[in-house]
C-alpha cells in the first residue's frame, strides 16, 4: 500500500455551490457518525504497517476536526508524509507554525474559489471566507510552507482564471499551470437531487470550456500532446482502467474503505469496522477491479472510445450520475469530444468510438509536436 486517502469529515465551514460531499459544519448527525481519534490512529497504524508512505487528509474541511493536530502529528510520527487538502480558512498562526516545524513533506493543497470577495463568496456562500482563506494562504507562504494552489472553474469565476494563473505562477515551487476542477461531480452520496440540479447548471458549457483551453495557449497544446501520446486507447469492457485501489485507497469519514475517493457505490465499499485494510487491499479490491461493464451503451461507446485519457467517464462518475457503475455520462462524453475536436483529434460530427485510425491520429498529433520543439 503506497498511499491512503483519509476523509476526516464530510462537514465543511464553506457551503460551496458545486460541492459533491459537504455537510454543514455544525451537522451533529454527521459528526457523531465520524470515526473517533482512536479509530483514525488505528487505521493510520495499519496503513503504515502495510507500507503506506503518504496519507492524504481531506474532507469536507479536515481542519474542522478538533483533533486535527493530534491526527496530523500521529501520522507524521508513524513516518507518513501528509498531503493536506484544505480551503485554508481555518488555518491559524499556531497551525502554520506546526507545519513549519513538523513539515507535511508534501505540498498543502489549497483550493482557491475566486480572486475577489464577490467571486469567491459566490462559490462558498460563507461570508468572510474570502478574507479568511487569503489570511490562511498568507500564513503558509510567510513561513515558506510549500503550497499547491488549485482552482475550480465555474461560470461565476471563469473571469478570474487569468488572474489566478498569474498569482499561482508566483507561488514558490509551482511548475506549470495550476490545475482546475472543471467537470463538477454530482453528490457523492446521491443525497440531494436539488443540489445535483444546481451543480449541473454550474458546469461550464462547451463554449466556456473551449475559451479556457484557448486561453491556455501553446503550453496547453504541448501538455496535451505529451498526455495523449501516453493515455489514449479504448479501455474495453473492464470497468477499471484507472489505478483505483492498486497502490492504495480511501477511507471515508465513517470507516468505509473505497478503491477511490469518489467511488461510493455499495458494491464497491468495504466496511473497515468488520474487517481490515489488509483484507480490503488484498481480497476486496481485486474483486472490484475485475468488474466488467454490462450496459449496452457503454459496450457500444465507452469500451471502444479512444478518448479515454480526455474523458472522465469511470464507475464513480456513473455512480454519482446514474446510481450504477457503467451508464455513460453524457456531459463527460460531450466535454471529451469538444476537447478532442479542439486538439484536432476528431472532425466535426465524428463520434470517437467510430474512429478506426485513432492510433495514427495520436501519432500524427504527437509527431508534429516533436518537430516543433
Amino acid at each position: 500500500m503506497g498511499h491512503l486517502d483519509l476523509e476526516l469529515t464530510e462537514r465543511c465551514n464553506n457551503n460551496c455551490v458545486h460541492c459533491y460531499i459537504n455537510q454543514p459544519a455544525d451537522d451533529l448527525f454527521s459528526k457523531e457518525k465520524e470515526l473517533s481519534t482512536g479509530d483514525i490512529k488505528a487505521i493510520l497504524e495499519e496503513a503504515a504497517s502495510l507500507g503506506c508512505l503518504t496519507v492524504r487528509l481531506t474532507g469536507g474541511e479536515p481542519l474542522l476536526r478538533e483533533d486535527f493536530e493530534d491526527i496530523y502529528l500521529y501520522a507524521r510520527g508513524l513516518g507518513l508524509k501528509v498531503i493536506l487538502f484544505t480551503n485554508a480558512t481555518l488555518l491559524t498562526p499556531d497551525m502554520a507554525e506546526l507545519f513549519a516545524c513538523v513539515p507535511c513533506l508534501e505540498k498543502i493543497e489549497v483550493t482557491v474559489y475566486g480572486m475577489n470577495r464577490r467571486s469567491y463568496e459566490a462559490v462558498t456562500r460563507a461570508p468572510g471566507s474570502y478574507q479568511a482563506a487569503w489570511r490562511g494562504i498568507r500564513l503558509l507562504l510567510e513561513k515558506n510552507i510549500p503550497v499547491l494552489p488549485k482552482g475550480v472553474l465555474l461560470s461565476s469565476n471563469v473571469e478570474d482564471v487569468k488572474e489566478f494563473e498569474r498569482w499561482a505562477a508566483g507561488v514558490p515551487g509551482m511548475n506549470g499551470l495550476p490545475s482546475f476542477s472543471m467537470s463538477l461531480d454530482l453528490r457523492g452520496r446521491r443525497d440531494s437531487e436539488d443540489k445535483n440540479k444546481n451543480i449541473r447548471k454550474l458546469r461550464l458549457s462547451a463554449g466556456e470550456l473551449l475559451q479556457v483551453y484557448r486561453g491556455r495557449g501553446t503550453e496547453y497544446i504541448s501538455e496535451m500532446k505529451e498526455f495523449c501520446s501516453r493515455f489514449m486507447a479504448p479501455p474495453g469492457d473492464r470497468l477499471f482502467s484507472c489505478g483505483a485501489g492498486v497502490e492504495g485507497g480511501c477511507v471515508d469519514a465513517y470507516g468505509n474503505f473505497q478503491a477511490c475517493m469518489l467511488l461510493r457505490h455499495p458494491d464497491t465499499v468495504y466496511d473497515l469496522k468488520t474487517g481490515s485494510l489488509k483484507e480490503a487491499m488484498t481480497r476486496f479490491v481485486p474483486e472490484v477491479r475485475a468488474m466488467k461493464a454490462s450496459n449496452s451503451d457503454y459496450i457500444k461507446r465507452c469500451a471502444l472510445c479512444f478518448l479515454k485519457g480526455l474523458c472522465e467517464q469511470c464507475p464513480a462518475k456513473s455512480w454519482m450520475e446514474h446510481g450504477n457503475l457503467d451508464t455513460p455520462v453524457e456531459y463527460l462524453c460531450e466535454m471529451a469530444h469538444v476537447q478532442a475536436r479542439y486538439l484536432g483529434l476528431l472532425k466535426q460530427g465524428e463520434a470517437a468510438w467510430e474512429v478506426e485510425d485513432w492510433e495514427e491520429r495520436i501519432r500524427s498529433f504527437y509527431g508534429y509536436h516533436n518537430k516543433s520543439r
Partner: protein
Amino acid sequence: MDITISLDKTYTVSEDVVAREIEGEIIIVPLVAGIGDMEGELYTLNETGKAIWSRLDGHTVLREIVEELSSQFEASAEDIKEDVTGFVSELVKRKILIEVSQP
C-alpha cells in the same frame, strides 16, 4: 560543518526522524524541519548502509561494528572502516544520527 567521527563512540538514530522498513528497504522519514538537505525527499539506504544501520543500536561503539562487519564481509578492514565512518559522518551531518553521550 566539519564532523569528527570517533570509532570509540556510539551513535543512534535521532528522535527527529522515523526509520521505516518497507519491502526490504530502509527509508528514513524526517519528522522536523531542517533534517539534512532532503527537502521532503525521503532517504533510502543502500545495502552497505543497511548493514551499518542495523548495528547502530546506541550501545555498540563503531570500532566493534567495523570488526563485526570485517568478519562477515570480504572487504578489507580499512575499506569497511572508511565505509562506516563515511556513512555515520554523512548521517550525523544530516541530523539523522546523533552521538550517544557517555555516562
